[in-house]
């Protein structure tokens, strides 16, 4: 696990993390007119993934309080189909909200590996982005991208709920532009 390869969870997952739907996609294209159907279904599934992003209930430090405020009444993330799921299996997005320490790094790696494909990561706050003013402290990992691949970086210390929502919209745009399903 330490060398970054994806551990085997359940039936062997394709190494590059593409969902099994892509093998299905190959067959569909061979049928006459399959290509068009495939493109249309691609957009449909991307739209579904974009409009029901379920983050994991997981916060580290001060950014977690701002994340809670984002899910509270005023900045209501539920408007965009974003509800918190407590278990990594059912979560699509892992929002790293706070400082990543060396004692927490293996746990974050385990959490990321437990999440089902397709999954994304939002690094929230400058502690997660680069370690902020703790970056040269002995016990802090300067940036969560040393531990897991990050899709969206949200700047701020802590980023305001509007900034986090902007990060979620950026992730939604990224999902719509992503190539094949599960990419």
């Amino acid at each position, binding site marked *: 696990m330490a060398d*970054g390869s994806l551990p085997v969870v359940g039936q062997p997952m394709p190494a590059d993390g593409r969902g099994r739907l892509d093998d299905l996609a190959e067959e569909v294209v061979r049928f006459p007119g399959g290509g068009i159907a495939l493109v249309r279904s691609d957009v449909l599934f991307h739209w579904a993934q974009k409009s029901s992003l379920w983050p994991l209930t997981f916060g580290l430090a001060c950014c977690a309080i701002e994340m809670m405020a984002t899910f509270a009444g005023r900045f209501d993330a539920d408007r965009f189909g974003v509800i918190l799921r407590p278990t990594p299996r059912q979560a699509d997005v892992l929002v790293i909200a706070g400082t990543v320490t060396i004692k927490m790094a293996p746990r974050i790696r385990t959490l990321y590996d437990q999440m089902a494909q397709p999954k994304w990561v939002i690094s929230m706050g400058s502690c997660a982005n680069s370690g902020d003013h703790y970056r040269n402290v002995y016990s802090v990992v300067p940036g969560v991208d040393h531990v897991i691949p990050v899709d969206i970086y949200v700047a701020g210390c802590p980023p305001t709920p509007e900034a986090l929502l902007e990060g979620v919209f950026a992730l939604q745009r990224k999902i719509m532009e992503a190539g094949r399903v599960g990419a």
Partner: protein
Amino acid sequence: MGVPAVSAAPIEVVEREFGELALNMGPQHPSTHGVLRLVLHLSGETVVKAMPVIGYLHRGVEKLSEHLAYDQLAPVYERDDYLSPTSNSNAYVLAVEKLGGIEVPRRAQWVRALACEWQRIASHLVWLGTLGLDLGGALGGGTTLYMYCFREREKILDWLEALTGTRFHTNVNMVGGVRYDPDAASRAESTAMASEIEAALPELWSMSGGNPIFQERTRGVGVISKDLALGVGVTGPTLRASGVAYDVRAASPYDAYRELPPKVVTRTAGDAEARFQVRFEEIGVSLALVRTITEGLPAGPIFSRKPIKNPKATKLPAGEAYAAVESPRGELGFHIVSDGGPKPYRLKINAPSFKNLQVIPHVVPGGLLADVVATLGSLDPVMGDVDR
């Protein structure tokens, strides 16, 4: 992608030895208030042994503070207890002023007290919301209580944002005074907000303390006796709920609290419900304080030293000082040892949550799994405060 060469701490499964279920309420759990890990030994549903494992948010602040100058450190400590940042920087600034004999103008002391009291109310509202989430679950009544509490808290954060530009890491306190000065509009807004939140309190009470299911879940749960409280050194509402009337604002007053001693709320039962009632009443006490401070804000300067050109230039005489502040979680003290240089030689933060959490192994065994969650919620730990 360089993954750190730190192997995960082996999760010791000791079922065979104890014949119980070793449950790991791991660093990621909906109700551990951040990255706290509780290793519980359960036989059936009752907890036999509980061992908190902390350190998942240890950011080495005390080592960092030996490398930064006195004027640069206040914002770093604001990130420690991230529910009431102004109390942290207030305690640090008090200790430095005490060590350096720096005098603080009266208006600055009152503005400090104002910001601290507002953030105490905001922190108690977050505590009430997360306690609702603990007892009611994210798909149940608890979420409604959490939403109502955060609706009130947003008003306070708006006021702080108008005053200081940021929502809660406000950097209000500086060594020798305060950085922001509330003008007439801000003061009027503060009084108006005080009555608005006061009007919302009965509704919050009916959803929590007044609700029979809530009383059933918290009465007689996690009882901390008086001498256990004193021996372990729990602080703040947790100590006052066990019958010890110690509040730093009243016992050894600092800043504006010499002129405005607050009412010390105490209970004797020492269970989760007593802690709940103490904190809920403290919101009322803080609201009264905020009103008197806003009306009676004295005129005058807000900073007693010349504008700081080079933060690394301020030097403090060699010596040692300890100053404490009543943060929403309890007595937050800074013990600074200076060797006469521009940087502290050694700085120890006496964090309230670190001491409150120490009571878990003594109090939790014997209860059910649901009581662990209720007790933890009633202690209101903040992991940044615990791990520093």
